[in-house]
């Protein structure tokens, strides 16, 4: 009886799963046939420690529209090594891996496995060739036990057609034993911490006879002990002649676990070599290049007349995202906050803005301590927050341009609850001209605008509220070059109008060009502050990957 009810639940979830990922649906039959073969092959692979796979990617080119993402990249990876794939955001790492994983096609070039050319048209082709791609968002179903997750889409069935739960359980246990994983296959996936989920994914990849595993930033959401667990697993794989391509921003980890590195910059392969031959500093400079600093937009030093302190934060802590944050910002200043994925900067400023909560710490506005419990309170007190991911966090897709530009100030301008639309219109007309928003009619849908103009509309709604502190989270995300420059101009102009501006960005370039000084965050703490000549990509990258500033001059500790 429990078995049968299990089948019922399973089939329901399977349907769901196949909706999410239809490839399971189409290949499940094929997979079931090949599974047993794969399973035994994997066993022999693990035992023999003999032959290992070699992947070569030659002259890979890929462009999206006029944007060349990969320009003639050639590289190779083989079993038994852990190879770090490094590069800044937008360097082409994920495009390259998506080509290898069969997710997107390349424009030209070739992929060779053991000197034989292969053609990956779908992710399944790539998987069957022995390449497993573990994405950042794990592909596990929380409501099923581990052993059922291990066999998703290629379930073992009894002759009657019901699931052979026992066999699936035993096989999972067997693999765990071989991989030195101390885990009960019957546990529910939801009860696992992030590192064990990662490990289950890896074991599942092993079950599909993977010889090369691509891991896309597997450690971003893990704690230090969890990272150790995953690293131990990776070492086991390495000993078993499996190759791993490890995408990470954290140079500490690269130094610890990897034996080779590949650095991409702007779609070019800039450096390949053994990790033991280089320092972290070298790697950081490979990633950003040496002559990256373009002309700074900052106002000439000495001409900076910053006003009084507007916002001060003391010891702000939320154990999940950020710890012991201290900083202060004056009127007319532009302060950058940067770091890599998982540094907690968005969460920090959403907490200051009242959208999320914090556990301990104090916030002072113009010298007075304030408690901010909601976003409307924050707005009344003069804080504005332009969120990242415009589409999810800022755009009201069912509303028109003028409404998107006035949502913040509706209640401010209204008389007895009635919207003062003429005032909104007048204000927006001024802003349309000063922000140079290219648009048709005010009552056109917001989605009719380009990304840059949408962002300007979102910005205009905050300017309408007359903020004292303007927090801009990734303000140039998904914005074309022209609009980007416009937004920089606007930021500088607003600072001249004595607004304290905070720019959150993962692009060091952006911070260097626009900000007076920058705080660099790493894993929820402010790792250091840079300004003047110390504010360069190398230093920022070193801090963002967990390095220290050292005793160089120009350093201002808080």
């Amino acid at each position: 009886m429990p078995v049968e009810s299990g089948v019922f639940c399973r089939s329901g979830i399977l349907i769901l799963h196949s909706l999410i990922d239809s490839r399971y649906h189409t290949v499940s039959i094929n997979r079931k046939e090949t599974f047993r073969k794969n399973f035994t092959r994997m066993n022999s692979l693990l035992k023999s420690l003999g032959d290992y796979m070699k992947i070569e990617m030659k002259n890979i080119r890929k462009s999206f529209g006029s944007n060349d993402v990969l320009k003639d990249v050639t590289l190779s990876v083989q079993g038994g090594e852990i190879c770090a794939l490094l590069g800044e955001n937008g360097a082409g790492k994920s495009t390259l891996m998506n080509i290898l994983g069969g997710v997107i096609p390349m424009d030209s070039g070739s992929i060779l496995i053991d000197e034989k050319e292969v053609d990956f048209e779908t992710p399944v082709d790539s998987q069957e060739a022995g390449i497993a791609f573990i994405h950042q968002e794990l592909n596990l179903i929380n409501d099923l036990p581990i052993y059922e997750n291990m066999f998703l889409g290629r379930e073992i069935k009894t002759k009657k057609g019901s699931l052979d739960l026992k066999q699936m359980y035993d096989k999972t246990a067997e693999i765990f034993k071989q991989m030195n994983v101390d885990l009960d296959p019957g546990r529910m996936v939801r009860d696992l911490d992030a590192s064990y989920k990662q490990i289950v994914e890896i074991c599942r990849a092993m079950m599909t006879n993977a010889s090369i595993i691509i891991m896309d930033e597997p450690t971003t959401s893990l704690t230090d002990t969890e990272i150790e667990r995953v690293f131990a697993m990776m070492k086991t794989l390495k000993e078993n002649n499996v190759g791993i391509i490890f995408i990470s921003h954290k140079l500490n980890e690269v130094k610890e676990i990897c034996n080779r590195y590949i650095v991409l910059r702007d779609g070019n392969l800039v450096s390949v070599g053994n990790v033991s031959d280089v320092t972290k500093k070298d790697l950081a400079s490979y990633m950003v290049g040496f002559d990256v600093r373009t002309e700074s937009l900052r106002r000439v030093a000495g001409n900076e007349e910053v006003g009084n302190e507007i916002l001060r934060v003391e010891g702000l802590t939320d154990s999940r995202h950020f710890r012991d944050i201290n900083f202060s910002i004056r009127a007319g200043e532009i302060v950058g906050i940067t770091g890599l994925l998982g540094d907690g900067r968005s969460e920090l400023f959403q907490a200051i803005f009242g959208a999320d909560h914090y556990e301990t710490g104090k916030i002072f506005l113009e010298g007075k301590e304030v408690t901010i419990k909601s976003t409307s309170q924050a707005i009344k007190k003069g804080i504005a927050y332009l969120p990242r991911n415009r589409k999810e966090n800022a755009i009201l897709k069912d509303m028109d341009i003028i409404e998107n530009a006035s949502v913040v100030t509706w209640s401010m301008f209204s008389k007895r609850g009635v919207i003062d639309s003429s005032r909104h219109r007048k204000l927006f007309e001024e802003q349309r001209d000063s922000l140079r928003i290219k648009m048709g009619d005010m009552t056109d849908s917001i989605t009719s605008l380009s990304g840059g103009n949408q962002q300007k509309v979102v910005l205009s709604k905050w300017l309408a509220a007359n903020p004292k502190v303007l927090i801009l989270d990734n303000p140039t995300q998904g914005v074309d070059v022209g609009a980007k420059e416009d937004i920089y101009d606007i930021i500088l102009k607003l600072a001249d109008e004595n607004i304290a501006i905070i720019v959150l960005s993962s692009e060091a370039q952006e911070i260097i060009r626009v900000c007076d000084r920058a705080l660099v965050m790493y894993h929820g703490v402010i790792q250091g502050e840079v300004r003047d000549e110390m504010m360069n990509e190398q230093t920022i990258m070193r801090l963002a990957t967990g390095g220290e500033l050292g005793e160089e001059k120009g350093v201002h500790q808080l």
Partner: protein
Amino acid sequence: MIPNKQPNLENASPGKKTFVGWFKHKWSNDPLFSILIALIIMVILQTLTLGFDYNSFGEWFQAWTNNWINILRNNAGVGIVALGMTFVIMTGGIDLSVGSTLVITGAFAMYLLDTGAQGILSAVGITGVPAIILTIILVLAFGYMLGALIGVSITKGMVPPFIATLGAMMIFRSVTQHFAQGYNTKVPVEFLQISSFKIGNLMIMPIIYWAIIACILYYVSKRTTFGRQIIAVGSNERAAKLSGVNINKVKLRVYALMGLLVSVAAIIQVSRIGSMDFSNAGRGMEMDAIAAAVVGGTNMLGGRGYILGTVYGMLIIAVMNNLLNLFGVPPFLREAFKGVIVIVAVLLQRKEKTA
């Protein structure tokens, strides 16, 4: 009319000048246009079915008007509830409890009004017109409070709207049936005037209430902070929150408004008949209200919704019921037609969106 044959640059832009162009333009740009066309077709059908077998135009007009007054009056209560439901759905929620709220507020009104032994107001010595006015105020307040209670459990308690209102639906009816079953009231005649007061020999008071409330809510949805914030919340809750919209307050007020409108419907119903059948009154009301909103172009996922569309939607369903009645379709089959209408309406709107 012969179209202007001289070359006209304004005509170069598609549509608007010729009827077909205008029609196409409206069809793809005005979300309520297709609903209005559907309604007009239904009304023409209904008029044809009614026939012209009368001695004079006056007599035919009399019959036609009477038929229409009947349709509108019978649907005024649900029509009012559907308006509130539109707001609820626009926030991305749903309210299944309306039928039960109708019964519990109706029972409350009857207990207040009763001139007999169990009457609450008469027991404390308030009778006549003051009692009626007080009853109206208390019943409205009661409905508002019940709605607010549901709203609190949804916002503060984080109970999904479907569950919260499903629970309320069971609780309200069950409690009412337990305490009030078999209760016969003597509702004062003056109270019955609320619905049955005649204007020029026509019993149209419920229709007037419906029209007034529709106008007010239309204004609220278009012009007030509350109305636009409803759309903002339903369109993108996260963005609304990050724009300083107090999403919990908006949702709470929407459910409270829903309760208030249901209590208006309850007052209309009690004053029309003078009593209420606690086990059957309001059954299926939530589905009719949802159907009207959906036919009227409201998006079940929230964000998009039209008060005017809901009025059209209600009328379409009402006219169709009337048509089925005139055709003599057996009662059990009528629900099926309603179902078809709802699905077809949504299909039509979908096509519009992708076109």
